[in-house]
């Protein structure tokens, strides 16, 4: 009946509320689904009047770091992936999100919020693929990681 409140990662839960609010804001006011993959990808087929909001959203993401730093210290960031694997990861993420029309934000947050069967299917698939990849890289082919 009672949840162990100490076990809740509050910063994650509150951060999620903010992400949900940001997505809702964009949908209510601009009528757009927030998803960087679609936003950035959309820049490649430029239509007049459709560029500004994409650029300002991305600027907002960068600006958030500046704002955060004004008040707090950035949390610890650990990246152990080498450049080759980072480039491979970026390449797969770019291609995959364009082909599959979305990422964690577009499908995972926006899509599931509106109960889109496509987004639910996509989220299940990319989660499973992520679990599998981490399993293989961390527990099977451990020599791949430098």
């Amino acid at each position: 009946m009672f949840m162990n409140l100490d076990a809740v990662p509050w910063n994650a839960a509150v951060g999620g509320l903010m992400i949900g609010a940001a997505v809702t804001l964009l949908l209510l006011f601009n009528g757009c689904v927030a998803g960087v993959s679609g936003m950035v990808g959309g820049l490649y087929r430029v239509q007049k009047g459709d560029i500004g909001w994409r650029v300002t959203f991305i600027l907002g993401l960068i600006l958030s770091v500046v704002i955060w730093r004004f008040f707090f210290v950035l949390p610890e960031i650990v990246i152990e992936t080498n450049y080759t694997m980072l480039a491979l990861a970026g390449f797969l993420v770019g291609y995959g999100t364009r082909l599959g029309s979305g990422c964690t934000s577009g499908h995972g947050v926006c899509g599931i919020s509106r109960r889109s069967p496509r987004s639910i299917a996509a989220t299940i698939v990319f989660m499973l693929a992520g679990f599998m990849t981490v399993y293989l890289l961390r527990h099977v082919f451990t020599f791949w990681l430098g």
Partner: protein
Amino acid sequence: MINFMALLSGVVFGLGIILSGMVNPAIVLAFLDITGNWDSSLLWVMGSAVAVGSAFALAIKHKESYLGSSTQIPAVTKIDRRLLLGSLVFGAGWGIAGICPEPAVVLAGTGSIDALVFLTAMLLSMGIYQKLQGSE
């Protein structure tokens, strides 16, 4: 106004990514590492984001947004091979580095060279995708 709301949304989104810890790829990878030292953070982030999103999902019934632009909700409903294959490829890439597009941009904002390497490759493959689409 549309640009301002997009900027505001980006800022709130970015602050959420930093606060939630999702800016740190190690935490994302720890979530994906189900047989390792599992970290539930990502589940809480997605859960609460979806909770807020769902509360306002009614809004998409409107054909127009508050600022008058038409609501661009994807009209496709078919679960096809492209969707599944694309999500598979994305998930594999996500599993390699623990980075997805939004946090990548925020990470780049912190001055991370790693994030720039990731983003450059991401933009390149998106460009290639667009080229291949155009030639079809």
